[in-house]
């Protein structure tokens, strides 16, 4: 009986989604060129004229899948950047119990380093341009402090760097039972993370349903809506337990990155004063996950920077109408 209900609901949803129900997760043509454990690197189909260009590496967030930056042809960052650069994307995969003990620094240092070593072998370039989205931006920023000579230019897209009063997430992180969590869990389930973001906007689901009802006849809207829902609700990623504990305690609770106190598992200090790469900060005024002040770079960071603010939200800056402005400005910044 329950199975029948489940099938009926799924069939109904598929019928509503129409032809986009089976849309690929990530629309730009790509191939997997590297794999180490859970981590993969995607290389996007090279456009003519970009063969000798410095590689562009995208670092997506750890809490959701990479293809938010390649959701539909119209909104894709990858698709746009690919016209100008050789584009590569880190895919963090789906970590499970086997990754529960790994420190956070494995992700922001070791794995990004491996990706850059691979790019050096593949392209011959010692340096790359890097774009990080959300926590991916935080990791890209930390990496640029640890290995300043390997980054040419850095773009931070809605990325938290200053975790002081970091909105509602920091309110929940403040009392988070980190020790109990590490003792009992191997990872923070992707579904729990997704429901947290759902709960912090209590009527969000209702408003989303209303919006769908109003606009579902517009095929452009429906395509993006279905693609977004498949990304946000249907493809959660687990956050490995030890890395999650460190992320919450070192960054959200103790704000170590902004105050120059963060260190890797191997006790290498993350020093923003060492950073040299020119940086473009893209942030959003209505971002309820990463409020504007959280995108400020540490006072110790003296590298050249530019800040562009858009009147949109955390996801809107990637797929909304301001996403187009954001990616145009980002490419201009890289070509300067």
């Amino acid at each position, binding site marked *: 009986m329950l199975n029948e209900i489940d099938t009926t609901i799924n069939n109904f949803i598929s019928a509503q989604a129409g032809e986009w129900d089976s849309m690929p997760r990530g629309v730009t043509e790509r191939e997997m060129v590297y794999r*180490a*454990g859970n981590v993969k690197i995607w290389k996007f189909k090279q456009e003519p004229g970009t063969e000798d260009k410095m590689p562009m590496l995208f670092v997506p967030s750890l809490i959701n899948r990479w293809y938010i930056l390649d959701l539909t042809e119209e909104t894709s960052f990858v698709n746009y950047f690919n016209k100008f650069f050789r584009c590569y994307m880190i895919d963090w995969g789906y970590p499970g*119990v*086997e*990754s*529960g*003990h*790994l420190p956070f620094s*494995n992700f922001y240092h070791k794995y990004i380093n*491996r990706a850059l*070593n691979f790019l050096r*072998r593949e392209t011959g370039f010692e340096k790359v341009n890097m774009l990080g989205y959300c926590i991916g931006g935080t990791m890209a920023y930390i990496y640029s402090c640890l290995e300043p000579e390997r980054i040419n230019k850095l773009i931070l897209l809605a990325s938290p760097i200053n975790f002081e009063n970091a909105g*509602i997430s920091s*309110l*929940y992180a*403040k*009392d*988070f*039972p980190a020790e*109990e*969590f590490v*003792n*009992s*869990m*191997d990872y923070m389930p992707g579904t729990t993370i997704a429901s947290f973001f759902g*709960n*912090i906007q*209590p*009527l969000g689901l*209702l408003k989303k*349903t*209303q919006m769908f*009802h*109003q606009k579902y006849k517009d095929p452009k809207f429906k395509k993006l809506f279905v693609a977004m829902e498949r990304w946000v609700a249907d493809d959660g990623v687990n956050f490995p337990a030890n890395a999650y504990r460190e992320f919450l305690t070192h960054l959200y609770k103790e704000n170590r990155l902004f105050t120059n106190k963060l260190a890797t598992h191997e006790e290498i200090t993350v020093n923003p004063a060492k950073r040299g790469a020119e940086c473009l900060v893209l942030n959003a005024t209505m971002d309820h996950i990463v409020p504007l002040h959280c995108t400020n770079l540490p006072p110790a960071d003296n590298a050249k920077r530019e800040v562009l603010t858009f009147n949109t939200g955390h996801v809107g800056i990637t797929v909304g109408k301001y996403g187009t402005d954001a990616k145009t400005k980002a490419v201009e910044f890289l070509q300067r």
Partner: protein
Amino acid sequence: MYNFMGDNDFMKKMYEQWEKMMGDHFEKLVHDEKFVSEITKAMAATMTGKFMGTKMMDETFMAMNLPTRGEMVKALQKLVDIEERLIDLSERLEDFEKNTTDALSAIEQKLGVPVDNLQKSKAKSKKA
């Protein structure tokens, strides 16, 4: 606004009012420090309960001389550590190989002698 009330103005207004009220109320609730503190306490208690349950299961399995979940997870994580080490080593080896080849071809260019010949003559002199 969602139009399931048809064109009935009164119902529409009532719905809008309800939506605003609920929105404000829930917004306040999820931002309330006391509420958050209680939620995290409940989470901590649930996690402790889960930990105790797993511990009990592990002890039962241990008493029966069977591998426990904890042991299996640890073994899996050890495998990941070994895999990590292997990846590091193989990449270092790859870099080393490339550097050696580059250095050899640089020597070859400087001396004008193919390195293969140099290596062969070295081997011959060793044999002698």
